[in-house]
């Protein structure tokens, strides 16, 4: 994978974790992919073998899987961390982000971007999950301000706003907006629910 190339030259040896260190959020390697522990259940008969039954999210595929370990076993840790980076631009194949403090740049591919792509506006600060230094997940800001590029002019004066209407935003995302929202206006959108929040304040 291209996006991971930067990380391939890192020499860091990751710690391994015993099942006693398992907890929600711990990042471990599983079948070659970085994973995050969601839930860890300690299972032990009164007189017998102890197990850790865990629910894990594969950070590359987003899939949730279960796995049982013998208590006391160790697994390899994954060099995964989250960081805030500013979105710069895209060349159509990669999306480029910059650490606002070190000015270090990384590029993410479409797979890492996923749905975030429809909310990305230059200069916005996103949360990137890096594995061995390369982005594997890009999360847009919780709220973004985007211009409406297309929507039905609708009936001016109808402010009951019951049904709303679809509006296309500058990034290509389509959200439902109240009838009074017009082309050229900037609106605030909650990216988690893809819902209109308000008209953006005029600066």
């Amino acid at each position, binding site marked *: 994978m291209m996006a991971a190339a930067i990380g391939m030259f890192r020499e860091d040896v990751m710690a391994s974790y015993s099942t*006693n260190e398992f907890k929600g959020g711990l990042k471990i390697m599983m079948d070659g992919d970085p994973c995050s522990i969601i839930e860890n*259940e*300690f*299972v*032990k*008969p*009164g*007189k*017998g*073998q*102890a*197990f850790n*039954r865990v629910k894990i999210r594969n950070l590359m595929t987003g899939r949730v*899987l*279960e*796995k*049982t*370990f*013998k*208590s006391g076993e160790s697994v390899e840790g994954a060099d995964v961390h989250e960081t805030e980076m500013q979105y710069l631009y895209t060349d159509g194949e990669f999306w480029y982000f910059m650490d606002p403090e070190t000015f270090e740049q990384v590029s993410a591919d479409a797979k890492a971007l996923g749905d975030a792509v429809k909310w990305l506006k230059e200069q916005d600060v996103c949360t990137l999950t890096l594995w061995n230094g390369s982005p594997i997940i890009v999360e847009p800001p919780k709220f973004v301000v985007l211009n409406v590029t297309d929507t039905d002019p609708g009936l001016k004066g109808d402010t009951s706003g019951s049904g709303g209407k679809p509006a296309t935003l500058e990034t290509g995302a389509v959200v439902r907006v109240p009838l009074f929202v017009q082309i050229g206006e900037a609106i605030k959108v909650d990216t988690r629910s893809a819902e209109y929040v308000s008209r953006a304040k005029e600066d």
Partner: protein
Amino acid sequence: MKATESWRPSASLETLRARAGLLTGVREFFQRRGVMEVETPVCSRFGVTDPAIESFTTRYAGPAAPPGRTLYLHTSPEFPMKRLLAAGAGPIYQICKVFRGGELGAKHNPEFTLLEWYRPGFDHHRLMDEVAELVNSLMPHQLEVEKLTYAEVFRQALQLDPHTATLAELRRCAREVPIPGAAELELVQADAWLDLLLTHVIEPQLGRARMTFLYEYPASQAALARIIPSSPPLAERFELYLAGVEIANGFNELTDAQEQRNRFEQENSERSEQSLAQIDMDLHLLAALEAGLPACAGVALGIDRLLMQITQKACIEEVLSFGFERA
């Protein structure tokens, strides 16, 4: 957790009132039946050899032990209670805190409350009946009682004979269920595979809107139960399940001193194989068995887990005044 939060109890006051009511109910039950309440030492110079149980230790230094002495915190009051039985105490019960290392989770706390009782003259079937009567006297609703053998539940759930299945058959069964990760698990003993299948596949189905007793365990899992020399040999051991959770473990008690010594030695040699510390076997218990333990059945019941069932709590710390992280 910040101290400004963690000073608070992990159980609600309503649950703590239910705990007090439960303990009162247990004491009344045994008082009506003429079973005597006893107390035995928490700290002992001898420990438990069972490789699956990890004892806490502490140190005493002072009169009688000037250089200091290592003491084990009890993991169950079984050994001293049997010494009381050998001394002629008659039927006895105890409610006490016990301690087990390495056990923490939604159903485990390193210190927890056991109710343990012994009935001279009872076999394990008669004791199962008494366990059911006690539990029904404490539960908000009466539960039907079901008794199934260990072999029956494995046959029904997995079409597997737990007494004869080979390591390879058990591993294949776990992979086919499937239990995720079974293919990579390194379990060298058949009993560990049986524990895996029992905890992951069978237990969740036991005690659903009823009380389920499992009995006739493999001889290799006898612990301190008598073994019937049948083919296959069967341990006169039972467990109670409520809503998929193990609540109690009982035995038709082993009374043979030599056999007990053999089992202690066997467990200590398993400990060496697993690179676990050797534990000093309880010589007081062996001497009491030599002197004569009356034929009896005994059972240990987890009070915290029973309270979880009564109050419908999913996590043990919700029934403890202060769970491990707040202790």
